[in-house]
């Protein structure tokens, strides 16, 4: 492979391997902006992944897969909302439970189908396989080096970025977005001006969780549906929770965050080919133990948390003031 080609594929891989983080992060931002801290991203993505994949394959329709992934995860959100909003359960514990529950559902379904010899292989389903193929954007994708890296991707990558931008606009420039932020900042104030706090929370928890589910579905497709001992989500849900803070609860910054995390994450996979292509400059990359690469996203999370807490002056932080606190109108 020529040297520039290595760079191109490196950029390409950043998106290919890490776009689920963007789905998870944007979904969680929408949930958290309603004042609910849902730590169940991992499980929610797993549920979306398995249902989306199975139903998508059996119907041989990518769009159905996306919709089912969205709905299955939105149902997880509905469960979370019922427990925390209506029944006032502790959000942290409910979220952790959702993670364990979701991953459990994933393995239960997958293993049951495998045992029954009914596990669908993605390559058998033409529409799914072709639907997931890269679509070059005319013109832009022909730019040397970066064209293929940025502008030649499958439909779900474009969709993820579109959702992130739409979520940013919704939060910042729409009336329902303003109301949503009010609920997350001060539900008592929102309630007192006639905003239906419960409905806002239910709607946005389901919406956010649904978006996470599409990210989960993507991970399954990206692994061509190979089902083994490790869950497809493989910790991405947890990183998404941290990315929310990195992005300062801003879906547009979540795109940047995904790139930064994705960069280090991709080094783990493609570091050796970079080292081979540029032995003088990047040769040292080959000598870094993979464990360090694996730890990098978490080290960066820690660094970012420190930076954001220093920067965290009032008004500068996107942290919803009422995050994690359940709202009960008659509370005194």
């Amino acid at each position: 492979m020529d040297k520039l080609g290595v760079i191109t594929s490196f950029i390409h891989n950043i998106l290919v391997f890490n776009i689920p983080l963007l789905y998870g992060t944007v979904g969680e931002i929408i949930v958290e902006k309603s004042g609910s801290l849902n730590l169940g991203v991992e499980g929610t993505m797993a549920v979306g992944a398995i249902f989306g994949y199975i139903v998508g394959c059996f119907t041989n329709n990518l769009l159905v897969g996306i919709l089912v992934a969205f709905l299955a995860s939105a149902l997880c959100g509905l469960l979370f909302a019922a427990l925390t909003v209506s029944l006032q359960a502790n959000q942290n514990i409910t979220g952790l439970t959702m993670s364990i529950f979701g991953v459990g559902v994933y393995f239960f379904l997958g293993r049951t189908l495998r045992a029954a010899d009914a596990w669908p292989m993605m390559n058998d389903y033409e529409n799914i396989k072709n639907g997931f193929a890269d679509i070059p954007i005319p013109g832009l994708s022909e730019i040397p080096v970066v064209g293929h890296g940025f502008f030649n991707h499958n439909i779900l990558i474009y969709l993820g970025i579109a959702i992130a931008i739409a979520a940013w606009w919704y939060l910042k420039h729409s009336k329902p977005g303003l109301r949503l932020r009010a609920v997350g900042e001060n539900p008592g104030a929102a309630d007192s001006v006639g905003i239906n706090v419960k409905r806002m929370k239910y709607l946005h928890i389901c919406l956010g969780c649904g978006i996470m589910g599409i990210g989960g579905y993507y991970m399954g497709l990206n692994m061509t549906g190979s089902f083994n001992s490790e869950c497809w989500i493989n910790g991405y849900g947890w990183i998404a929770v941290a990315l929310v803070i990195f992005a300062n609860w801003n879906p547009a910054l979540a795109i940047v965050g995904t790139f930064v995390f994705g960069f280090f994450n991709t080094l783990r996979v493609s570091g050796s080919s970079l080292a081979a292509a540029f032995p003088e400059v990047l040769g040292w990359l080959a000598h870094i133990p993979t464990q360090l690469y694996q730890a990098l996203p978490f080290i960066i999370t820690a660094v970012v948390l420190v930076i954001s807490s220093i920067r965290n002056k009032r008004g500068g932080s996107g942290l919803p003031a009422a995050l994690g606190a359940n709202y009960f109108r008659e509370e005194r």
Partner: protein
Amino acid sequence: MAESYAIEMRGITKRFGSIVANNNVNLNVKPGEILALLGENGSGKTTLMNMLSGIYKPDDGEIFVNGQPVSIDSPEDAKRLGIGMVHQHFKLVDVFSAADNIWMGKEKAGFVLRKNRYDDIEQIANQFGFELDPKKKVYNMAVSEKQTLEIVKVLYYGAKILILDEPTAVLTAQEIRKLFDVLRTMKEAGHAIIIITHKLNEVLEISDRVAILRKGEYITTVDTASTNEQALTEWMVGRKVDLNIDRPQVETTRPLLEVRDLTIENDEGAVAIDNVNFYIRGGEILGVAGIAGCGQKELCEAIAGLRPIKSGQMIHKGDNIVGLTPKAILEKGISMSFIPEDRLGMGLAPSMSITENMLLKNYREVKGPFVDRKSGRAAAEQVIKDLEVVTPSTETPVRRLSGGNVQKVLLGREIKAGPNVIITAYPVRGLDINSSYMIYNILNTQKKNGVGVLFVGEDLDVMLSLCDKILVLCHGKLMGVVHAHKTTKEELGLMMTGALDLSEKYENKPAGVAKDTLFTDAKGGETDGTSDHEA
């Protein structure tokens, strides 16, 4: 004739578990009328009003709006019925601009947020006669601005019935006057207004009628014109109350706490306290007067060791306390209780019980890793008994108590530690008469025991009758220290605004420097030695 009332409540009862917050309460207010709702802390005023604003639902009774029976199930319902409430703890989103705080509740405002909402809000505010910067964020607003925003907000939503829960508790005298002008204008425009306040002079000044609650029971409604402070107090408290504040004469000691050339910066790095001198003797109450936010908070925090000072000296019984930890200062017997504007913030952990809050201060006295709940509970019981705290039990979370009782718990705990200097800021903020007088008595008892009290206050009438001396601050500068029995409200007012500076009144005796100072480099002292009282 029910039709003539904007609001009528009949036989309203509300229970929280076994506690009856309101029992068979009747209340009515006409359009173009101001009704004052009077009652002690915990008498159920706010609960009653929250049933109009849709926060609570009554267990029993009926509510009529303009003669029609209504059921108010949510704040949304209240809004539709034209009822707007300005809560005691403002219901505002801190990180939003003024306009967005109003806009978020606007119906049919479209899907897209447009820039012209700022003009829209500003225009409406001006129309009602308010000044409001629509782009200003709430966290940058002063309390009075937040209140203005709250009022504009409910008016914008078309409220015809306006409820204000203790709107004057956090305002200065000038701001109160402005608020009252606004209320009178609205009254003339035909609004029905219900105002909750503890201050009897305000009740008499602003209201047309007064409804009185006592311990959740409805007592009576009277015409303001035909009543007076004494009668209102008796209805409210249920017995005769002496409205005079005692100022016992106590033998004073040498200065306990002396502050010399103190300069402190506020959080923004601006000078909050500028080169101030003062001292407190045992057996005296030194008042600190000043317009809100002119360094009182910073001064209290500096003495308690919570805020570093920029320059100057502070000595306690001759020992330096600058740079000591809050714990070390506490151990010297200096205690500080500060009631912030929101009345919840400082000093107590709201979700912990009274017992646990007692333990916060004395857990160190018990050796070993275990918490001695018994002593905490005993302390809690003592404070509840001594200060007549109204609470279901010692294990009730502090945030469940009404404001006055929270303040009693805080002050009670500070006094229990047996301090020799008490720094107390706004201890009666938002308290009813009975509780306020109880706090004054507590402070006077401490004074008689030889404790030096620094009393940061708001109400000049109270300070004039309670304090021995009054120190006046203006923008962090010392304007002088005057004897309470020799000065007047007018003189204090002039000093607070900086129009009168008495700090250089006596050439040989700078204000705030004791003649028998314990500073070793005694400057300005021992010139005549006849008396340690200036002037």
